[in-house]
């Protein structure tokens, strides 16, 4: 980390390459948010490694004045895991999309989360394959019409939050590409969390799936159709700040404060640090129109971190082992002399 005087500006994280995403693509905003967050976090260029797979979003590392590696489809989290385990001092950020992380890279995605490698994973979810020009993705809604589903898909989508928590994830947050302020906040929260942090960014593909998130991201409605969760604060949302969530039996229920005897005191208070996943899963799974879509840090729970545990175990074994060098090893155990 740098001292405040030497702190880099967000422009110091811009590389000399011109950004080649489509005009109006949500990726531009996310790039700005990441650069801003890294500046706020006091990062140095050389200590950051940005790793990606394949897809529109995965061009990201080329635009970052840091170490970067644009790898192969779906394998970003495996490569990022290798980088982090090899050198845990590095800040390792992984950039991925719904196809890269949840289709071809699904296996690596869940296992990275399960191990809890200290990575910050930004999952650009635009519910479409953009770079191959418009096929449905594993997050496209059932019935979605695309070039490979001209009559609508007949399969259910993954919900990234559900998958993350199901894979024993300890950090999951959600934000909207164009809400820079909130996105920067989420990235800083993710960076501060030790272990695998997943941020699902609802990202707009202006060419192949324009306005896919509009029902909830559109300014006119977003306050009524989303809820920004904050740890320790009641789950209140809406333009009038009069709607809230409470538990009705085992299910969440949307209520209006002041109606049917509901008071602010009845509203659930968000506990992102709760180890139990039940409520986090319910919050992560909320979908419009039945519920507001949850934004913010849904889950942030401390847990053992893989790369740190690897280091600790090495130290512990080195402390007690009689084998201190290669020479010790080859002379250990059964040997004999030929005279």
């Amino acid at each position, binding site marked *: 980390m740098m001292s405040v005087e030497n702190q880099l500006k967000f422009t110091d994280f811009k590389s000399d390459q011109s950004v080649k995403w489509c005009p109006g693509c949500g990726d531009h905003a996310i790039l700005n948010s990441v650069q801003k967050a890294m500046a706020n976090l006091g990062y140095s260029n050389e200590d950051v490694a940005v790793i990606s797979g394949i897809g529109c979003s995965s061009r990201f590392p080329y635009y970052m004045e840091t*170490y970067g590696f644009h790898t192969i489809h779906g394998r970003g989290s495996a490569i990022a895991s290798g980088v982090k*385990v090899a050198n845990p001092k590095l800040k390792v950020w992984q950039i991925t999309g719904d196809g890269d992380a949840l289709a071809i890279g699904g296996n690596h995605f869940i296992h990275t989360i399960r191990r809890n490698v200290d990575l910050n994973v930004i999952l650009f979810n635009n519910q479409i394959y953009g770079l191959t020009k418009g096929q449905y993705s594993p997050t496209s809604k059932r019935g979605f019409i695309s070039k490979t589903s001209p009559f609508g898909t007949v399969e259910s989508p993954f919900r990234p939050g559900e998958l993350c928590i199901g894979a024993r994830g300890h950090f999951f947050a959600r934000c909207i590409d164009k809400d820079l302020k909130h996105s920067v906040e989420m990235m800083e929260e993710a960076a501060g969390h030790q272990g695998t942090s997943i941020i699902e960014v609802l990202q707009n593909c202006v060419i192949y799936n324009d306005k896919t998130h509009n029902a909830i991201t559109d300014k006119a409605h977003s306050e009524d159709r989303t809820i920004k969760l904050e740890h320790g604060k009641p789950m209140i949302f809406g333009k009038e700040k009069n709607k809230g969530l409470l538990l009705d039996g085992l299910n969440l229920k949307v209520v209006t404060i002041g109606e049917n005897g509901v008071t602010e005191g009845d509203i659930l208070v968000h506990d992102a640090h709760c180890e139990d996943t039940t409520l986090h899963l319910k919050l992560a799974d909320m979908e419009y129109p039945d519920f507001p879509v949850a934004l913010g840090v849904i889950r942030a729970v401390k847990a053992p971190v893989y790369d740190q545990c690897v280091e600790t175990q090495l130290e512990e074994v080195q402390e007690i082992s009689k084998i201190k060098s290669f020479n010790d090893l*080859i002379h250990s155990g059964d040997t004999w002399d030929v005279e």
Partner: protein
Amino acid sequence: MGKRSKVIEKEEVVVRFSGDSGDGMQLTGTLFSYTSAIFGNDISTFPDYPAEIRAPQGTISGVSGFQIHFGHSEVYTPGDYCDVLVAMNPAALKANAKWMKPGGTIILDVDSCDEKNLVKAGYHTDDPIIEDKLGDYHIVKAPITTLTKESLKDMGLDNKSILRSKNMYALGLVYWVFDRPLGHTKEYIQKKFKKNPLIVEANLKVLDDGYNYGNIIQAVTPSYHIHPADIKKGKYRNLSGNTAVAWGFLAAAEKSNLKLFLGSYPITPATEILQELSARKDLGVKVFQAEDEIAGICTAIGASFAGSLAITTTSGPGLALKGEAIGLAVMAELPIVIVNVQRGGPSTGLPTKTEQSDLMQALYGRNGESPVVVIAASSPTNSFDYAFYAAKVAVEHMTPVILLTDGFIANGTQPWLIPDLADWPEINVPKVDEGMKDWNAYQRDPESLSRYWATPGTKGFEHRLGGLEKDAVTGAVSHDAMNHQKMVEIREEKVQRVANHIPELEVIGEDDAELLIVGWGGTFGHLFTAYEELTHEGHHVALAHFNYIKPLPLNTYDVLKRYKKIVVCELNMGQFANYLTMNFPDLEYKKFNKIQGQPFTVVELKEHFKSLLEE
């Protein structure tokens, strides 16, 4: 010891322990080989176990064997045919009878030859010796089960534990046959079962009783006498090919001052490398047991990007899965060693058997023009050397290297003269240095064409790598037509220039031999033994054995063209012969191929070479 009635003096002998996969034959064989090595014989061993962990008891598919070849002179293979077979049940006899040398000795546990076991083994009569026409052999019908029970009857052990000690009874008897001391095995038993004194006592007792049983039956049992070998002085240990590979990388990490990282997924027969390095946390090795083969190599590529000596280990099917990622390492020009312990293929094939059929996959099994260095080890112990050199080439030339071994040398063991690392060459890591001005990621060393390694954390060298083609000068993404051609050519040329840094091909034998035997990788022991025996018999043959496959040694053509007849021997359909044809099309290559999941036998090689000499 009493006077022995029949002593057979031998230069070398092959012993095979064979039984049910739960009979402890691997341990028995290992202990016997240690004792022989400590006695001063040169040894070579090979385990032969079924693919199933516990195949149906008493059946041929459940037979587990361990073969040891040891001698008064140097031995290069675990031997083709056995002098002594220990068969713990009829299935073991049935499976191995055809591998007996004429006049050999068979020690059979006759207690196991009940009707049920005979039927399971596929015998149709109640006398397997007659049925298999083994009348010319020394048959020692030992009631091993009964004798073991008798030996332990007053110890208060349960029946299962008693039956488990049968192998030590057999081992004791075999020690008598070869007049070997029991000291090492006793020490082992004491150490291994130290938490269970009763088991220690029981095993020591049956071992002694087995040995003494030899004295009782000496009138009908031949014993063998093999003098110690005249081998190079020094301190030795037994080493398997897989352990040798793991240790070669440890040595390379120490020499290069790099951290060793292994990303891997368990697969037969390569898993022991992963296990061995997992145990080496004391030497700082980071091992990542990945979710699949792809993550195995991808974590290694990540670690290489971050500045580690990065390795991934696998066998044929795993190499197929790693193909795309190897291409990434080719493009990003990052050092990585991919170890492929070859097994029988295609698909799942013969997982526990040996083959050399992944050569073309190693050379070409990727999309695009994707050159990598390919090196092959040729014995259990030189797997150490070639793992070391694979790491050295990978790092110094910033390239992926595929190291080929096979199930035969990976599981086989040989005595290894413990080296002094000071005698091994340095590994020079081409890291960037601060003096480099206007550095870019694809700036190259003019001689080797290797690029320089800038690892994250190094200030001023931030750069972006990736699978997309890069501009030769700036290192930025480039779709330029001429630049792509240039980069493709540079990547190939970089690999070819490794030839300037590897030893020349050496020929064993005379320049004017009538027949040049050519081999590569794990067939060396058999080819060399065949060469030696033929030469001894007065035939004019020579042997050229390859360890460096891509690039080939610079003098390869000059060597090959000297010979009128060349026969390329390999455990596949002729992949190396075809590769040589592609490189040196004006020469004629005969092929000798075997694809049975088994190594060559010296006998079949000699027969074939003799017929070629007569042509």
